């Protein structure tokens, strides 16, 4: 009997949103014939019950405190026990710090593969088929698995979680397995935030090499200042030129942002940059080149020299109040 095992997770003691998103994805697969959905959580039985309300058919609370540190070594025996118990042949994790480590370790332990950061999942011919972005989002790959057990991590905010339904019922069990961690966690610290963190900003105003000079970032900062909760970002090219601090770089080798509004000024849109901001809800491009990739990806674009647009836009946004 096939089935799906969802590795749910908590954040500061509460069930993390990715857990519900994974259950949403698992229910879709289940409706395509992938079997029942079991959720595993390093947490309490109450949390296991909550996962059933959100779409699991059964839930397992991994009660061993050693799992709380989130190390692969501690987790693996619990996950293997859950696979045994549930009979699952599909294992879904989030593309989070936990899933990024646990997915590959589990796959190699079970001598199978893991598809990382998947954005689409479906059942084809009784087997999992996944789609994932690669080459900085320039290409998409569709993958299948050679071995029986199919492990995939899922990109956060890709699938919708289901609303809680308290009338759903299912078996809640407990697993106490845990492995000895070879990696000892000494401590954790929150990212320091001076002003609005780029990753948390609702509006990001970013500039690229096309700005032409360092001083232009002052203008971008003024534009950002007209929005509530806005931060200024830069492309790698602009940071490499020393125009803006590397901490503000958006892209593959910088920060990943997904604001409501991303204003890309004089940025062409190479995959290096797109990889860090393609999850933005709405993109505005201000660029001289109508054929720029960023213009194509945008909701709104102005084809013009930014020097003529940005000062006027600052005044216009101020007028809106």
């Amino acid at each position: 009997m096939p089935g799906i095992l969802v590795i749910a997770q908590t954040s500061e003691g509460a069930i993390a949103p990715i857990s519900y998103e994974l259950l949403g994805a698992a229910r879709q697969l289940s409706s395509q014939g992938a079997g029942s959905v079991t959720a595993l959580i390093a947490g309490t039985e109450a949390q296991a019950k909550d996962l059933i309300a959100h779409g699991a058919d059964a839930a397992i609370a991994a009660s061993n405190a050693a799992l709380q540190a989130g190390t692969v070594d501690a987790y693996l025996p619990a996950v293997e026990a859950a696979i045994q118990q549930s009979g699952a042949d599909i294992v879904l994790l989030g593309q989070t710090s936990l899933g990024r480590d646990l997915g590959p370790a589990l796959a190699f332990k079970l001598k199978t593969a893991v598809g990382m950061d998947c954005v689409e999942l479906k059942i084809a011919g009784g087997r999992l088929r996944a789609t994932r972005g690669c080459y900085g989002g320039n290409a998409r790959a569709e993958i299948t698995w050679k071995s029986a057990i199919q492990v995939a991590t899922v990109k956060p905010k890709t699938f919708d979680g289901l609303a809680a339904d308290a009338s759903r019922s299912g078996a809640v069990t407990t697993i106490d397995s845990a492995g000895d961690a070879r990696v000892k966690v000494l401590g954790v610290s929150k990212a320091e935030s001076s002003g609005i963190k780029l990753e948390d900003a609702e509006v990001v105003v970013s500039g690229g090499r096309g700005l032409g000079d360092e001083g232009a970032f002052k203008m971008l900062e003024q534009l950002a200042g007209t929005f509530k909760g806005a931060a200024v970002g830069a492309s790698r090219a602009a940071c490499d030129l020393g125009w803006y601090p590397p901490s503000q770089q958006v892209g593959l080798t910088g920060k990943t942002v997904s604001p409501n509004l991303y204003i890309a000024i004089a940025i062409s849109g190479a995959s290096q940059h797109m990889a860090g901001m393609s999850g933005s809800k709405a993109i505005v491009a201000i660029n001289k080149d109508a054929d720029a990739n960023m213009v194509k990806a945008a909701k709104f674009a102005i084809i013009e020299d930014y020097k003529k647009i940005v000062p006027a836009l600052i005044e216009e946004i101020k007028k809106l109040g």
Partner: protein
Amino acid sequence: MRSACRRPGNRVNIIVCVKQIPDPETPAASFKVDEAAKKVLPAQGIAPVVNPFDPQATEAALRLKEADGGGKVTVISLGPDSARDAIKHALAMGADEGVLLNDPGFEGIDNFQTAAILAKAIQKLGGADLILMGRSAADWDMGVVPAGVGQILGVPVVTVAKAIEKNGNNLKVERVVDDGFQSVEVALPAIVSVSNEFGEPRYPQLRQIMLAAKKTVQVWSAADAGVGADELGAGNRWLPLEALYVPKIESNVEIIEGETPDEKAHNLALKLRAAKLV
């Protein structure tokens, strides 16, 4: 691994794995895929580059070697002939020697086969105290090779490092995690993947580049590394690639028009307000 029982006081022995990839700064318009062959076509006139996270791994190795007052840094790359440039880059930064894993059977393999082959090459080199890699390769962006080599060699893995400190036989690593940073400790031998937060890698100086030309780069075939035919080629992928394509960007862009730049800015502001983005 042999080094697990190395005598205390020995100089640190580090292996760095690097990869050559298509330049992530390639304009999207130059990025092409052969869908039938399920391969990315090299962009005209744009040379491949060292994976952007890998120079940080080399930098980490060099700093640890310097802090230890000596040691050895060996660079491995699996790839085509041109991947020799990725090794040369690390040698010019200051690494001591290189091994290029080069075989027609490596064409089209996946990250899982790669991990298995790298593990064999590392074993053939006699293991190491520390194996460093970039946090992921920016082409396939899977980030699974560190875990794979760790699982195969039975060595603990620490990922996404922003700082590494060696105290005797222990490593203290500062990691980048979802909401901030995590500090961990691990005994050697270990594998650590390094992130861009590690800081700027050194830029090869002319003298180093000239010295690098004299450093040895061995070339190993699959057979040299002890890799069997049943582990080679796209046909033996663990994660078969069913399709590879450039997603159609459904460009729904609305070009904001206007007689003057001021009018364009005005019209954009109105659009943003209408879309409740302001």
